[in-house]
């Protein structure tokens, strides 16, 4: 009896696993997306799926640098599209990781807002389309600290209430630029004394930081695990919406601005669907859905008509009068970049 049961269950499991393996390889139209975490509403992906009869799969990454690392670690050729930030588009193009979009392949290319067409990181938009843009500074829990927060001292020379309760993004570009702004030094510096000062600043500030993490940046503020944290503006707005009493800072020393872009990856397995998706994301209504979800700004003409009017009034998307301008992250040459990589390694080790 017992033996019989076992034999039967083995037979059933063999059959079942065969069916599962067969079942997993049947979809026809596919699109494979490599995207930032918590950035696109599932409903929008479902809409694209339905309209085009394409099965969309999405994996997520948590920093521009880890996107680059995993594409170079053998994942190129598995994905059709990725969403790197401005400087990373330039790096990926230089590394030969991007495919070129021929003239006329994108029907909606004309929807790109004029100021986002001839951008320094992809002049004429040969590999990318604008996705969302926003800023990165930091947010402070106002229950914990009530003083002036519009200074980078909050991160690098924090008041006693915040010391040891700060989360930093696990993102080389954003942390190093923020530190450079704090010192008032230029990006891609080759001045050894300045670089040494930067190194010392990071090492001394590290003692006051509780954790490094990008995808957790919102949750640590909401859960109270951190009292202040480097964060993207839209993510900070979401933290506030989820009940954290946080205020997003516009430090007088400056802050990071960025634009994420949908890029066509080299060796994309579903290139046609990838182009369809790019066109889809250039429709004002669709890109506005991302804006409403992630609470950043779109770079597509006409998207304003579909975005939640409340968003524009949010403190996270409106720098106060007279605040310092934001800065894009610069791409350095190899020798300089290796020193900055070393700075990061020394910080994270």
């Amino acid at each position: 009896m017992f033996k019989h049961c076992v034999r039967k269950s083995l037979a059933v499991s063999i059959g079942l696993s065969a069916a599962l393996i067969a079942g997993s390889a049947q979809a026809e139209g596919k699109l494979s997306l490599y995207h930032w975490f918590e950035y696109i509403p599932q409903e929008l992906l479902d809409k694209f799926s339905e309209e085009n009869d394409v099965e969309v799969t999405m994996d997520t990454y948590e920093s521009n640098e880890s996107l680059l690392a995993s594409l170079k670690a053998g994942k190129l050729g598995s994905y059709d599209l990725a969403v790197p930030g401005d400087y990373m588009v330039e790096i990926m193009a230089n590394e030969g990781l991007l495919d070129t979009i021929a003239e006329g392949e994108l029907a909606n290319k004309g929807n790109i807002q004029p100021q986002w067409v001839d951008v320094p990181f992809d002049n004429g938009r040969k590999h990318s389309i604008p996705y969302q843009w926003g800023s990165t500074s930091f947010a402070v829990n106002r229950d914990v600290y009530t003083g002036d927060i519009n200074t980078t001292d909050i991160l690098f020379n924090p008041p006693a209430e915040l010391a040891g309760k700060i989360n930093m993004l696990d993102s080389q570009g954003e942390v190093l630029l923020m530190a450079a702004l704090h010192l008032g030094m230029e990006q891609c510096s080759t001045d050894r004394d300045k670089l040494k000062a930067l190194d010392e600043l990071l090492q001394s500030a590290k003692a006051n930081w509780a954790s490094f993490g990008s995808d957790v940046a919102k949750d640590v503020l909401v859960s109270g695990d951190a009292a202040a944290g480097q964060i993207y503006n839209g993510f900070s707005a979401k933290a506030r919406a989820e009940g954290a009493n946080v205020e997003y800072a516009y430090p007088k020393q400056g802050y990071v601005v960025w634009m994420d872009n949908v890029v066509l990856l080299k060796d994309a397995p579903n290139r046609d669907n990838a182009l369809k998706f790019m066109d889809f994301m250039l429709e004002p209504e669709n890109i506005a859905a991302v804006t409403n979800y992630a609470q950043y700004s779109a770079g597509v003409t006409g998207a304003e008509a579909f975005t939640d009017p409340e968003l524009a009034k949010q403190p996270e998307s409106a720098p106060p009068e007279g605040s310092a301008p934001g800065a894009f992250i610069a791409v350095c040459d190899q020798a300089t970049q290796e020193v900055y990589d070393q700075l990061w390694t020394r910080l994270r080790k």
Partner: protein
Amino acid sequence: MAAAGSGRTVSNTFAPVRNWLLLPTWLTVGIFMLLPIALMLVYSFLTKEFRGGVIWEFTLAAYDQFVFDRGLFGDEAPSIEWTYITIYFRSLVQASMATLLCLLIGFPTAFFIATRSPSTRSMWLFLVTIPYWVNLLIRTVSMKFLIRENGPLNQALLGSGLIDTPLQLINTNIAVQLGLFYSYLPFMVLPIYAAVERYNFSLSEAGADLYAGRWTILRRIVIPAVKPGIIAGCILVFVPSLGAFLAPDLLGGAKTFMIGSLIEEQFKGNAGNWPFGAASAMILLTLVLIALLFYARAQTKEQV
């Protein structure tokens, strides 16, 4: 262990086809386990490519980076680089502490269970092993939820008036410790249980006849007799603790690196330094092999 059926005649009914029976396993483990480890050793001696990947040029740079600090610009006189040694040392200490903690709680538990009547024994054992079958990730996440600053533990303690300010456990070494302890405790209990179950309690009685106190009996008679079980338990806790990734990442806030997170960072994170990651993994493997050799030696000594 390897020499099957000690004391029994070695059966050889399948001897003529033995190699064919072993071949699938040999091939699978050989190709997909041994070969990759050999390849990893090779990679640890290759040159790192700018922004990820490797160049096929032999260099000791990865091991050099592990041991020497050549300053921010790489041109200073080398001094000893303490960072990675500290990470490994910290991981060793963490793993040892977790092992010790597991032993302190696990030994009495195993002893208690092994001395129940046979029918209740299996029930106790079942209770202790169930959590082990629950996904490690889920267990770690549960622990994180329980001990976070405004989590149930702190709420309960605050509510009962035992503490005034919430315990800051999350993102500390204690949290990592607790996570490791919690992850691997059953690994300690099971081998000790098996050893105590086989222990002949008339030895304890003989000790008592000679007027030894119960704690002296435990220390001088029971513990030496069940030592193989204790050592096995320690190894089973120590080895996975050493390379643990989830507990440091989720409970330690990923700020204090342990070996596991250091290696992960080289492949998945910003660092993108494959040779250094391979070298770090090789060093970890060497440490584990040393621990296993120590174990093997203790076992053979036991048998002599």
